[in-house]
């Protein structure tokens, strides 16, 4: 059976000093093999992919396209051409909003998202609905953070053209019933977009089983470099869409007045691509598959149970989302009576514990739960029980540092 220690040695940053990194929901750490893959690309096959006719460029193209194939298999896409490389989930969501949303949402239509969304799955739809005079409808979770069947069935209607929903919440950690929502949305004739930024690092994803028309995620949350992200789209939809960005690499033929576009997926990848990033993403996916989602789930569960049990012993701490640790995907969002989350984070940083504080790019959710901001500890498979214990020890001292006599 695996232990986190078996993997920690692969992460140079985790072996420097005594830092406890509990901000994995913001970005994960990178194993050495990912950094090596990027280095190897630049040292051994660096040329501009997709255009040169010489060996190096051909090699760079092959590596880039091989990464695309790996991504397609990783999320169960029917075709490799359905994978578009972007910078991150935010860019993927914007691509869908601009190239699909604006052309398919009309006055009086509705776009359904949830109040739990990251800003990257809110702002693009605010733009589309404002511009097209359509209505933006929010699904709301119950007290356990769950979007119930009656909730989505009451808000997805014949007027709904798009349903765009997070697979896993970056604040509650809860996994939304995306498959059931997608099936119902399709019954109503809507197109389904799933923001998988927080899901892809933690649970197996199969876009066809889910029934997603579009699925987006970032590389950096699953150990790949920053600046490489993915948009999956069903070929039939992508084919009909206009390009998002125009310029180099995405054309077939250009005259002074007009242009025809390249075939999928290149139509959506204008300009020189982040080939080294894609190669790094492929290495990260391979590494992730070696670790295995079973171990990831098991370790995250073990750590979350320990963390939530320890935090429950501190009466001044409030945990948000489900009472069941199994539904947190390693994310524990909390507040402490009388102490602002930024002070919690600063005091913990003094003890070399890294946790996030703020609104987690989900301000509507903060308003919904009635907290200006919250603190968030998020673990990954390379974190240990010993780290959780040390975190709890330091957490228990925060109020005393802040001048309270408990």
């Amino acid at each position, binding site marked *: 059976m695996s232990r986190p220690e078996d993997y920690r040695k692969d992460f140079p940053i985790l072996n420097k000093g005594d830092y406890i990194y509990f901000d994995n929901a913001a970005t994960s750490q990178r194993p050495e093999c990912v950094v090596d893959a990027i280095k190897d690309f630049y040292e051994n096959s660096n040329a501009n992919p997709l255009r040169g006719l010489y060996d190096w460029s051909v090699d760079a193209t092959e590596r880039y396209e091989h990464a695309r194939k790996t991504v397609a298999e990783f999320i169960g896409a029917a075709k490799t051409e359905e994978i578009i490389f972007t910078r991150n989930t935010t860019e993927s969501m914007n691509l869908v909003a601009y190239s699909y949303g604006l052309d398919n949402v009309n006055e009086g239509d509705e776009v359904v998202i949830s109040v739990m969304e990251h800003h990257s799955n809110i702002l693009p739809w605010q733009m589309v609905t404002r511009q097209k005079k359509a209505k933006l409808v929010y699904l709301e979770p119950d007290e356990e953070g769950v979007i119930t069947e009656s909730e989505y069935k009451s808000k997805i209607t014949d007027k709904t053209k798009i349903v765009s929903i997070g697979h896993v919440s970056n604040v509650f950690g809860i996994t939304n019933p995306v498959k059931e929502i997608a099936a119902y949305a399709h019954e109503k004739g809507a197109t389904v977009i799933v923001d998988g930024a927080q899901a892809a690092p933690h649970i197996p994803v199969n876009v066809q089983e889910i029934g997603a028309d579009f699925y987006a995620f970032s590389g950096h949350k699953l150990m790949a470099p920053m600046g490489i992200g993915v948009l999956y789209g069903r070929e039939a939809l992508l084919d009909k869409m206009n390009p998002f960005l125009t310029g180099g690499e995405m054309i077939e033929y250009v005259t002074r007045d007009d242009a025809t576009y390249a075939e999928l997926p290149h139509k959506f990848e204008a300009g020189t691509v982040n080939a080294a990033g894609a190669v790094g993403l492929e290495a990260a996916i391979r590494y992730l598959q070696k670790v295995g989602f079973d171990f990831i789930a098991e370790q995250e569960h073990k750590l979350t149970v320990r963390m939530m049990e320890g935090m429950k012993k501190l009466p001044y701490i409030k945990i948000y989302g489900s009472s069941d640790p199994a539904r947190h995907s390693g994310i524990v969002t909390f507040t402490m009576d009388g102490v602002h989350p930024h002070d919690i984070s*600063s005091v913990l940083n003094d003890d070399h514990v890294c946790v996030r504080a703020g609104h987690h790019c989900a301000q509507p959710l903060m308003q919904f739960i009635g907290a200006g901001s919250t603190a968030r500890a998020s673990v990954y498979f390379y974190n240990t029980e010993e780290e959780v214990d040390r975190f709890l020890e330091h957490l228990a001292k925060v109020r005393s540092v802040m*001048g309270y006599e408990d």
Partner: protein
Amino acid sequence: MDLKGLYREIVNEHNLRPSHKGEMANPDLVLRGVNPSCGDDITLQLRIVDDVIEDAMFSGSGCAISQASVDMMADQVIGRSKEDAIKLAGTFMGMIKGEIKDEEQLEELDEAAALQDISHMPARVKCAVLGWKTMQKMLEHPEEAENVSSEEE
């Protein structure tokens, strides 16, 4: 001073038992200052008689550093002329940015000079300067007072 020392020796007292927190009866100038990234949200109220700050109070919520800093600021600016208070704000912000290190100059800030170590904590700079920035803005541009002043990312 390290962060915990700073909290224990300076910040906690002003945060937990502020002297100038509350609503002023008849303020002459009111301005809200917000740090959207952290949720620090204060409303500063000044009473000004013959160009002198006769009273300063604040309401709202935020982290301990933002709250303590604005409370300490009120201590320092009450009784000063508008011009003097603007100058003092410049000194405070210069200190926090690490641009002013001259001890004699910093003495002007009295107790607020104790926040000098925030200049080594980039993540907390915005918290420390919120109150001072809001005051500077309302004194320099009184026509904008009563409005929301928001520090964008």
